């Protein structure tokens, strides 16, 4: 029941700048995801909100109140640590009861405590573990207890540091689906840190992408996915990664991969220097069936299938297009086999155009190769 604002937040550990000038405004009750690779400053951001790290500069404002100089136990925030941080000398029950017994999260009779703990452990499916000690639990169970210690108490803000990272794939998918629908989650402002873009897209009301301690982009999952601010964000979202090809403008055309990719140069974009970088998401590309033609407005890439890998219903193809590997994820009934020459097609609106830049460096996104009509909008 609180907004959270970070203004110009900076923190360095010795010579290492963990976060630099971070500005974020999180709405009341919002489920806000912070996404970034390891070392991006995600955990430092959470701990700054909690008051566990002393920031060098900037301020954290919770519910309109500056938290400068406010001790963690006066901030009324709850946090699930990536390392779980369960008290090894206490049982699961006592771990969960710990926030209820401090007197700072409210007053609870023994019966109240019991009731809350029962409710949370039922939700998380851990009520058979109450008498165990943390050392007797699997990592996945520990993670759920750590989550339970957050959910069991009311707080202005929930801070969740990779709370699903140690669950196995199946449980993670299941928890991801249910986490957001938890009553308490949906009402309490939550800051959720993850390196997993799927979690971010699935859970976040909004997502902030961090890189090397700096904010790269904030937006709804849709915005982040459709209009990544630069190639870093585009690469961070999606597995396999977005395909990037260097392109040049000539005669009103934008060509890449030695001419194997050839599309009309988008007039609404300013391609300075006549060069650009094209991005195709593996899922946006389609394999053209023999005999059929690409839809109008699609660009076609011809190439030879180098590798075909089955991922279940889908297949991942590595296609050599003019000497560059392009990854495509398509239905397995597409019929292409290794060595086949195939045509790939992608709507111009799904072709991302980035500014040109030195190899290995991320550049800003200029826009789509064609302007998306409102009617075409997919969600």
């Amino acid at each position: 029941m609180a907004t959270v604002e970070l203004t110009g937040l900076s923190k360095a550990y010795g010579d290492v700048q963990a976060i630099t000038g971070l500005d974020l405004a999180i709405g009341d009750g919002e489920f806000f995801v912070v996404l970034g690779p390891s070392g991006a400053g995600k955990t430092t951001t959470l701990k700054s909100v909690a008051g566990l790290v002393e920031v060098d500069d900037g301020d954290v404002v919770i519910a309109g109140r500056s938290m400068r100089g406010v001790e963690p136990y006066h901030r009324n925030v709850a946090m699930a640590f990536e390392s779980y941080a369960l008290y090894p000398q206490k049982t699961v029950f006592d771990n969960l009861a710990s926030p209820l017994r401090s007197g700072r999260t409210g007053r609870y009779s023994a019966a109240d405590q019991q009731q809350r703990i029962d409710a949370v452990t039922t939700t998380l499916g851990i009520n058979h573990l109450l008498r165990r000690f943390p050392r007797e639990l699997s990592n996945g169970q520990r993670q759920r207890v750590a989550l339970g210690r957050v959910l069991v108490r009311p707080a202005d803000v929930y801070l969740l540091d990779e709370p699903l990272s140690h669950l196995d794939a199946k449980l993670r998918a299941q928890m991801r689906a249910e986490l957001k629908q938890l009553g308490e989650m949906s009402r309490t402002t939550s800051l959720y840190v993850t390196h997993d873009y799927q979690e971010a897209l699935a859970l976040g009301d909004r997502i902030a992408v961090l890189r090397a301690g700096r904010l790269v982009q904030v937006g709804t999952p849709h915005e982040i996915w459709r209009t990544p601010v630069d190639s870093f964000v585009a690469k961070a979202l999606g597995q396999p990664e977005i395909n990037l090809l260097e392109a040049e403008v000539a005669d009103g055309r934008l060509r890449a991969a030695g001419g194997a990719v050839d599309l009309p140069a988008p007039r609404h974009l300013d391609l300075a220097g006549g060069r650009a970088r094209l991005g195709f998401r593996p899922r946006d590309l389609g394999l053209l069936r023999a005999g059929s033609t690409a839809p109008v407005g699609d660009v076609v890439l011809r190439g030879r299938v180098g590798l075909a890998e089955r991922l279940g219903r889908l297949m991942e193809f590595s296609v050599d297009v003019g000497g560059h590997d392009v990854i495509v994820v398509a239905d397995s009934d597409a019929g292409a086999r290794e060595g086949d020459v195939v045509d790939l097609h992608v709507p111009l609106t799904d072709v991302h155009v980035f500014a040109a830049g030195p190899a290995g460096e991320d550049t800003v996104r200029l826009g789509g190769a064609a302007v998306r009509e409102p009617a075409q909008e997919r969600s």
Partner: protein
Amino acid sequence: MAKELKPGQRRVTAGSVVADLMIVAWFVFSLFPLLWMLLLALKNDADQTSTYFAFSPTFDNFVTVLSQRGQDLTSVDFGQAMWTSVLNCVGAVLVSLVVGVPAAYAAGRWKYRGSENLMFQMLSFRFAPELMVIVPLFVIYNTLGIFDTKVGMVWVLQLVTMPLVVWILRSYFQDLSPELEQAALLDGYTRIRAFLTVALPLVRPGIAASALLAFIFAWNNYVFPLILTDSAATTVTVAVTKFLGGGGQAYYNLTAAAALLGALPPLVLALTIQRYLVRGLSFGAVKA
């Protein structure tokens, strides 16, 4: 070697017999003096010089050491000295814990200016020659009127007990994830309560190990009581040596009995806390 590293893979070979013999040889060397002391302590005055291994045992010597006669021989009340040692060492360890636990926690948790200097200073006490401070302390103690008192002993024994407590406990605090206390802070506990309810219980083995080890080393200290006490606060180590020069006549059996009495408390303690001793002996440098 590698074969022997794996448990359950032992064969009797010429090599293993030789190895066992070498172990036995060491322990004969290591334990014989203690055994001999026990034998000597059980001999009567006649047997002590006339026989080596065959005699009729008696416990009289232990009684004598603790009795008025022992006091007449050495001018030291041995029982009183043992009790003084107990009080001195308990006092010194308690002071070290009260003072040292917060310092160890600060040094283990924060990197602050001077913390490394403080720790090195502590370590240097461990290696400093005692006499460097004893001579001035002798003068200072006389000025302050704490010469030959337990208070004086408790203070000077800090040189022995403090470095142990601080160094061992710092290594335990460093091993403890700070996120546990952070979790407690977010649960709504103040820093003091987080320390008392989360950190402190988890370093209990360290506290036990450092306290007992500090007790043992304080008990075994000889130079400090030798110089800074006279008769009123004499400790057991000084008292034992008094039997050696027992007025012309040699009382080997009494000396042995006194030595055994003085050695017994550390031996018993050591056997009970052996599990934690390694880390303590090396000031936390070797973790077992």
